[in-house]
């Protein structure tokens, strides 16, 4: 960790107690924050130099009954990537929006709402962005059976097997 990053991270640690910056790679760090503090934490990071929000994405931890929202931030002065992770309950996934900090978050949040069903409070436009006439549960959730859906909606080709499978018993 170079001195510039150390200085920024120490400043942030002084404001937000009990947080740990994990070293992933050279100039790449991650941090976990409770969802109540997420917005103010991101706001602080923006003021400290992490001005560029590259991506918001979501991970479905089905065994732990939680969604993990990952904000990927970038610092143009130090060339550092920081991944801010926050967890939200899977049965009631509601998070505040970060549109006030980064207006582009609108479309990432719309996308996550569509594919995982996470609600972002304060985002005025959560209409479906890509899917059309979707009536099932959001398709990127791990309990959604994609193969079953495909079988019901898009028929497969039926093949007449007129050859012997290699290694099958009927070959002998």
């Amino acid at each position: 960790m170079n001195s510039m990053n150390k200085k920024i991270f120490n400043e942030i640690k002084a404001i937000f107690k009990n947080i740990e910056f994990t070293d992933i790679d050279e100039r790449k760090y991650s941090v976990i924050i409770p969802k109540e503090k997420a917005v103010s934490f991101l706001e602080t990071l923006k003021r400290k130099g992490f001005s560029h929000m590259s991506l918001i994405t979501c991970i479905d931890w089905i065994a732990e009954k939680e969604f993990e929202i990952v904000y990927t931030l970038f610092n143009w002065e130090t060339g550092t990537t920081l991944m801010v992770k926050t967890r939200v309950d899977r049965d009631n996934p509601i998070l505040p929006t970060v549109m006030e900090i980064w207006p582009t978050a609108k479309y990432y949040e719309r996308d996550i709402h569509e594919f995982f069903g996470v609600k972002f409070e304060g985002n005025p436009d959560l209409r479906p962005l890509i899917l059309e006439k979707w009536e099932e549960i959001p398709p990127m959730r791990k309990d959604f059976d994609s193969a079953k859906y495909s079988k019901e909606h898009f028929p497969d080709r039926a093949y007449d097997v007129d050859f012997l499978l290699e290694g099958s018993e009927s070959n002998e």
Partner: protein
Amino acid sequence: MTKQQSAWEKVANMLRARSLWMLYYCTGCGAIELPPTMTSRFDMERFGIGPMATPRQADILLITGYLSTKTLRRVVYTYEQMQAPKYIVGFGSCTLNGGIYYDSYATINKLDLYIPVDLYLAGCMPRPEAIVTGFKKLMEKIDKGEADGWKRYQENYEWYKKNQLDALGEVYIHDEFHE
């Protein structure tokens, strides 16, 4: 199989087979094989096949790769804009049986349920040699009057439309950025 053709049809089919303007719907990796097929090494123009910019002037429609439900809607639009006679070539295993996307929630598995396909090129991906062989086969079929997908589409329009509606809900294209 081959129907009796009138003398005029024989001449027309011979001419049709020798000047094909193609429109390609490059949805997937299949399109990668088209530049070498079109340019100097394989040079499909020596068979009388050339690229065309608009559906209304094209004869063959190439579907190169997987089709999602959204792109299928555009393909149906494009196909219906083309003037008869028109032929469809399906590239690669994606159009045949879904390929590696067979279990996706958004990818259709069998293209000939929705639009009439005259020729399939199997493989993932077919090499330019396979494409040239495929086009020669297609020319042969047109010459003999066997490539009659556009007629089948007219005759079985209800069946095709029903399959399209089953998979897509409706064929009308909604586009929030242009409405």
